[in-house]
């Protein structure tokens, strides 16, 4: 490549990949999480620790907000109508009194949303986080210099920074625990940002296998670790481009369009669908669709 290449391919370089004018061709990994079946059991989170070599940081560091769970389960309570208007002057100790438990709690697994227009990607000074062909928001550990701008700009705060040298100095894996580490991906050391990758080691293996066999990736060829362990099948994961994939069907059925920041169905008064994306209005175009929690009103 050279200057002539630059001039030749000028129009290509001006494409706004991947939103709008150049959608994903073969694969766009996406996820659906059904909050109605999510029971909040944390199996996905443990599976993620096992699959992705996440360090256990211990109580003290957890207290400092330095935990490394790529998928965290958030628990929400019902709130009374009076308190809907947030009063920042109120003491947080008091807020809790207005939590309602009679319809149970709500759980929400929060992981990297693999945004199409990811706020983190544009700000990394070294380009350690990029968009991949398969629609993943990649984080390249060995490129990362730890400026943490990506996390600063992430509205979901799902990027996790290695504040300490967990493998060596912190001894997060005392012998023989290192034998459990997954050799398919690196163990991160201090100063590196990390986050959910939609189990890239699995998606890439599936993709490679399909290519070797000269076929497209079928639905079910690859499961993420969280999806695989979920006891209630609340998580579905697959290729949004493949119309046969469960994920694609769900998105279609829920009328959620990846490339829109406002879904048409939400404007309609008689909307009976429960698919939504979190903080969609900020226009990161998240790749994870959540399905609203349902509660029976008859009891």
């Amino acid at each position, binding site marked *: 490549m050279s200057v002539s290449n630059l001039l030749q391919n*000028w129009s290509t*370089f*001006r494409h*706004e990949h991947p939103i709008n004018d150049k959608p994903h061709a073969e694969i766009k990994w996406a996820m659906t999480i059904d909050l109605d079946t999510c029971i909040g059991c944390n199996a996905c989170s443990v599976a993620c620790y096992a699959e992705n070599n996440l360090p256990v940081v211990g109580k003290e560091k957890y207290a400092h907000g330095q935990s490394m769970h790529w998928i965290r389960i958030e628990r929400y309570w019902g709130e009374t109508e009076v308190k809907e208007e947030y009063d920042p002057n109120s003491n947080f100790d008091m807020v809790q009194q207005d939590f309602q438990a009679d319809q149970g709690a709500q759980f929400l697994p929060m992981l990297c949303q693999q945004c199409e227009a*990811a706020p983190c*990607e544009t700000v990394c000074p070294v380009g350690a986080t990029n*968009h991949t062909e398969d629609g993943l928001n990649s984080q390249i550990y060995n490129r990362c210099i730890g400026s943490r701008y990506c996390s600063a700009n992430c509205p979901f705060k799902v990027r996790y920074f290695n504040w300490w040298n967990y493998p060596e100095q912190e001894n997060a894996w005392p012998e023989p625990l290192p034998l459990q580490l997954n050799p398919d991906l690196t163990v991160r050391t201090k100063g590196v940002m990390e986050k959910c990758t939609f189990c890239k080691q699995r998606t890439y293996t599936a993709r490679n296998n399909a290519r070797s066999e000269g076929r497209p990736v079928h639905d079910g060829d690859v499961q993420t670790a969280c999806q695989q362990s979920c006891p209630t099948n609340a998580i579905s994961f697959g290729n949004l481009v493949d119309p046969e994939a469960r994920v694609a069907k769900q998105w279609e059925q829920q009328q959620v369009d990846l490339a829109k920041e406002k879904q048409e169905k939400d404007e309609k008064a008689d909307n009976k669908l429960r698919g939504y994306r979190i903080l969609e209005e900020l226009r990161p175009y998240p790749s994870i669709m959540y399905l609203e929690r349902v509660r029976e009103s008859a009891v």
Partner: protein
Amino acid sequence: MSKRSILALYNNFDEAEAVVKELRTTTIKGFDVNDDLIIKSPIEHPEVEEFLGNKPVNIQWFTLVGALSGGLLAFFLIAGAQGNFYAQSKGGKPIVPFPPDFVLTYEMFILGGVYITVLGFLICAGLPAKRSPLYSAKVSEDQIGILVDAEESAAATLKGIFTKHKALEIQEEAGK
């Protein structure tokens, strides 16, 4: 034909101006006011230019070339790097986006301008150079120096003029 350099020191600009005026009117063999006369002063003094006549300053051309090439270099370097950076697809943004590139081009425009201007200054002002042997520390203090190059034969005439105008000190040295 040997040459001779003479330095005369004066107390203030008025005296120096008078000397230069006299030199200008006197015809001395092998001495041209425009080429062979150098004024040394402790401060920048616009009046010196007036009585020495207009001499061109060419630094602005350096500035122009520097700023333009800095800007161009930046844009092509950055756009080229972005085009060639292996897979630098950023969510929802073109690979060669204009706004950030303009910011950087702007910075490089200034950087190029400053660097080349300074380069121009060094070239135009003939720096760095060895100090000429005829130099007096007084010049950096408060005196005005007039340095002339002339033929051996004219030395006496020049010295005469210098003394006439109450030179504080006269140094001379044979040139090559």
